[in-house]
């Protein structure tokens, strides 16, 4: 027998039982065949609360094999609670290799960011999704939103974006920014910053989305058209930042604001920790990392 024989609880590889994996695998194939359509699935109870990525974990558990290398990020970071605990979970239940390097991973489970380093063919990006239905806050009834998707009736979403413009002078939606997949389904890209939306378009990687509490799986195959909704006179724009990353000096990346003290001191740093570390290893420095404390204060 194996070394774990002294444990009372003997779990199947990757925690889920085989029948559950088959059910999820069938849903994944349907999701890939109908890009952007939310496939209902019989989401299971997982040993973590809803909101901690139970949908993403079930998708990852159903596709992962012993040869995979797993990376888990939470808001771009490899070292936050959610990322660390999910990584530890899969190391325990599937005994797979884990990494923090984007390029080395075969499966990347993510909560609300797409890595800055470009994804490659053969990689799978698994999103943890809280509310998969982009129309849910506009129309609470599932029967109605389902009909709206069936009839391709997305006027309400455009009205919402228009109301943004009427109120704020611009489209004020900054995350979970709705996209249209392959000219058919309007889809919620999960609460990623809209900064990441262009990375979904024609990505060489397969993108899978799992919503555990809401029991939906959806997918974007590689090289698929993903267009952020906008208007001719108010085209889609991503966030831009006035200053580069304070640690590595990177520009054109998504930055987090970090509060440093009680006197209003703050700095902006890369949200993608792997990208930031790689750049610093290669000798790039920002205002704070250069050692000048004044830059911070």
């Amino acid at each position, binding site marked *: 027998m194996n070394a774990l024989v002294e444990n009372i609880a003997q779990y199947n*590889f990757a925690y889920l039982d085989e029948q559950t994996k088959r059910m999820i695998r069938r849903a994944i194939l349907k999701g890939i065949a109908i890009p952007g359509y939310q496939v209902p699935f019989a989401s299971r109870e997982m040993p973590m609360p809803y909101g901690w990525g139970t949908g993403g974990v079930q998708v990852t558990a159903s596709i992962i094999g012993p040869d995979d290398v797993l990376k888990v990020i939470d808001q771009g970071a490899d070292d936050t609670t959610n990322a660390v605990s999910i990584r530890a979970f899969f190391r325990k239940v599937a005994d797979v290799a884990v990494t923090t390097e984007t390029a080395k991973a075969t499966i990347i489970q993510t909560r609300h960011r797409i890595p800055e380093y470009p994804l490659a063919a053969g990689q799978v990006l698994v999103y943890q999704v809280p509310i998969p239905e982009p129309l849910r806050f506009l129309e609470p009834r599932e029967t109605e939103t389902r009909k709206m998707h069936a009839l391709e009736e997305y006027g309400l979403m455009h009205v919402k974006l228009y109301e943004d413009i009427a109120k704020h002078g611009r489209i004020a939606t900054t995350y979970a920014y709705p996209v249209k997949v*392959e000219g058919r389904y309007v889809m919620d890209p999960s609460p990623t910053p809209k900064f990441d939306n262009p990375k979904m378009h024609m990505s060489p990687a397969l993108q899978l989305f799992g919503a555990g509490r809401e029991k939906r799986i959806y997918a974007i195959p590689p090289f698929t058209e993903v267009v952020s909704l906008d208007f001719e006179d108010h085209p889609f724009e991503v966030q831009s930042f006035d200053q580069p990353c304070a640690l590595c000096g990177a520009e054109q990346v998504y930055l987090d604001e970090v509060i440093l003290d009680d006197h209003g001191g703050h700095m902006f740093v890369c949200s993608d920790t792997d990208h930031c570390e790689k750049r610093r290893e290669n000798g790039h420095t920002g205002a704070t990392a250069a050692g000048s404390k004044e830059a911070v204060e």
Partner: protein
Amino acid sequence: MEMPGQSIDGGFADPVFDAQSVFRAVMDAMARPGTVQPIGRSASPPAPLTPTAAAVALTLCDHDTPLWLDAALLASDAAKTWLGFHTGAPLAHNPAEAHFALVCDPAEMIALENFAQGTQEYPDRSATLILAVESLTAGPGLRLEGPGIETEATISPTPLPRHFVEQWKQNHGRFPRGVDVILAAPEHVACLPRTTRIKTMEA
């Protein structure tokens, strides 16, 4: 009378890891239509069921998925008992009720429109057809376009159902409804999801 062992032997040697490996090949093939994915593990089913088609069935089918068999398979008690023992999938007598269809004689296959197409509200309630083909390279070339394909892909499966290109055009036209096809060749799989457009049939 068949040997009792015939319906019991020949499943996956290592069910958990074999199913995972076959699924990843099918998933990659579905995500990138036109690519031919090698299948490392397979099953040893009784004829006319082929090892690759059987491996795909073991990976995806169970008691939740009514399975439709073509005439060649239906005529084989050995294949039926083998599938019954290893997957537990109930047989669907009506193709419109099947979640999966196993076809070992694609050239004589009934039209794609006979299978469950899903509904406009639930396009996922459609059939996935597993076609046992002899080769993915020896047939007439099909030029493919659509999601999962960067510019263009070519695949040459044989044999295919009659008027397949025309049937597939109608299938694609029903999007988001429609069937998806898994082509199971010896040691390889390729997929045609409903989003794929077949541009031309090359000579």
